[in-house]
């Protein structure tokens, strides 16, 4: 079986598209699955996702049944001969969500330099704990770009200013790249809506937005994670980021250079404003990191 890096990379992208709850159409247990999955029997289900698409994926519950509602989990599938770690979406039974009466209103914030994996981690967390958390969309004045994955709401500069003046934007920042200057922010209404559904809003931020949120809602209302790329030295970390930004293939070299400069500032910011972070975590192994995040967030450890 050809498991070259580009094939694995494309497969990983497709796996992320499976990250939706669904219903079991059928399932089977393979007594002798392909060798790469080890000798244990493997249960595979045909699952119809909420968006109507059907997918094949392992099921991890003990006694599935046709018609059962399931939810996705990302997990390590296997490591290829070349050492590539291959992740897969598996489906588990959906829990009965108990809504607690005294729901404390707080935000979950992820801050880190471009390329550290904020979006991926947030997406994985949002999917893995979709009954408990929801992503807050980012309002931006920049135009849509290939590679955007539903995380942005696009608006005009005039509309952005109007919302800001009327207090409907709780945190904002200007980000300049070369000759471009764009504004990004969070709308109060989006955060309130998530709270009213008894879920925890998750934001992917950078330093100014984080400070804005802490200022608006109070520092205690933000459970804040700083995300670091793997590596012991600043040089090693920046090198990791450069590699990730290039392998995303979404931006020009000039943009990547700008992002790297900003990243250097972000890494320095972690040291300067330790007070803004509750936990500093290293993004080395995605599934392990998501598991550890769930342990650190009140109410998510059982999700």
């Amino acid at each position, binding site marked *: 079986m050809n498991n070259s890096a580009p094939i694995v990379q494309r497969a990983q992208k497709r796996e992320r598209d499976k990250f939706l709850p669904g219903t079991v159409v059928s399932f089977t247990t393979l007594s002798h699955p392909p060798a790469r999955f080890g000798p244990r029997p493997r249960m595979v289900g045909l699952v119809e996702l909420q968006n109507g698409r059907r997918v094949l994926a392992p099921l991890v519950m003990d006694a599935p049944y*046709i018609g059962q509602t399931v939810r996705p989990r990302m997990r390590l599938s296997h490591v290829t001969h070349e050492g590539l770690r291959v992740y897969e979406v598996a489906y588990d039974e959906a829990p009965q969500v108990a809504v607690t009466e005294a729901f404390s209103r707080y935000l979950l914030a992820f801050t880190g330099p471009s390329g550290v994996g904020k979006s991926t981690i947030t997406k994985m967390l949002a999917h893995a704990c979709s009954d408990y958390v929801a992503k807050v969309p980012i309002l931006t004045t920049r135009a849509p770009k290939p590679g955007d994955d539903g995380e942005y709401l696009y608006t005009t500069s005039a509309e952005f200013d109007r919302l800001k003046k009327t207090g409907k934007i709780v945190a904002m920042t200007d980000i300049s790249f070369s000759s471009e200057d764009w504004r990004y922010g969070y709308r109060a209404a989006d955060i309130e809506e998530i709270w009213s559904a008894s879920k925890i809003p998750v934001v992917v931020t950078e330093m100014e937005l984080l400070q804005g949120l802490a200022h608006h809602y109070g520092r205690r209302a933000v459970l804040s994670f700083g995300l670091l790329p793997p590596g012991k030295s600043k040089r090693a970390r920046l090198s990791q980021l450069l590699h990730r930004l290039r392998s995303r293939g979404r931006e020009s070299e000039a943009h990547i250079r700008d992002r790297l400069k900003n990243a250097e500032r972000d890494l320095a910011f972690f040291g300067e404003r330790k007070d803004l972070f509750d936990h500093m975590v290293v993004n080395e192994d995605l599934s392990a990191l998501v598991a550890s995040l769930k342990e650190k967030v009140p109410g998510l450890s059982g999700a």
Partner: protein
Amino acid sequence: MQQDIFLVGSGLTRFGEWWDKSLRDLMREAIEAALESSGLQAQDVDLIIVANMLAEVTNNQAHMAALASSLLPHHPPALRVEAACGSGALAVNTACAFLESGRAKTVLVVGVEKMTDASADAISQALMGAADSELDAPSGLTFPGIFGLIAKRYMYEFGLTREQLSIVSSVHHKHATENAFAQFRYELSPEAVSASPLVSDPLRLFDCSPISDGAAACVLSTVHRSGMRLAASQIASDTLSITQRPTIVSFPATRAAMELALCEADITRKDIHALETHDCFSIAAVINMEDLGFAKEGEGIRIYEDLHAGHAPMFVNMGGGLKACGHPVAATGIKQLIDVSKSLTRGRARYGLAHNFGGAGATCGIHVLENTHV
């Protein structure tokens, strides 16, 4: 059909595990037998169509058409076709296109597979090439797995029981006892099928066709005649992945090819007295009966219950089907056509039908053979 095409010769190797025979040996054996039975000279062959799926993976051999051509003294032009387990029917269909157009007058069609040289895991992975490598294979699914999903869903929707399903393989094994070319020439009780090891829940070992070596060849001609005329040759396709289908308990390609074939042959289902159907897994045989229109939805098993009780509504998989005769992937579709001709001759029946599909019914080929002596 645009021209009258006759099946003038056929040849088979015994299907099974042939450690001492290579891909070339198997192909040569079937070709020589086909030419001998046709009474033609090798030089009468204008064109060779080769059906093969796995030679690159199992035998390090691509360029199968040239290999086949090198077996004939005049090295006629040759080409290879591939549609996984449906390669055989596709090869016959391709031959028909050449014959009908007049580009060839006598075509040798040969299907061959040499599967037992590879390990079980390697062959299982190679066969998954018949499914969608992006949508199906990454989940770890194998072909028994795909049909396990289908069987589980079918049982859920129609209430088919384990005991009922076990009848299918039992019937095929009984038929194979009289087939000298079959891989397994012994009877198998439904109880033995139910007690065999689980492969992919709810399918058990004896629900699955085996890994086989073998070759099948036939000679089709518009200028040389015989009592067996091809009355229809049709293929149809469906999505490669089962994830892209609204249902997994029916194969639309079979339904489409069947309607086209009946129309082309200008007959109805009642005219069919011999059927070779693609029982790669026992559940497929049940579903095929429904898709071919011989049973209502959810009632395909009834035909096998009748066959088991000795009330045969028609000849079905008289050579033992894929389960008991063996399933050297690309040879199967051609073997089916040969077995239909045998059933028509023995049973003095007029029309017979060979139904062959690839993957989980992503390609389906149907051929109708007419015994003109009846």
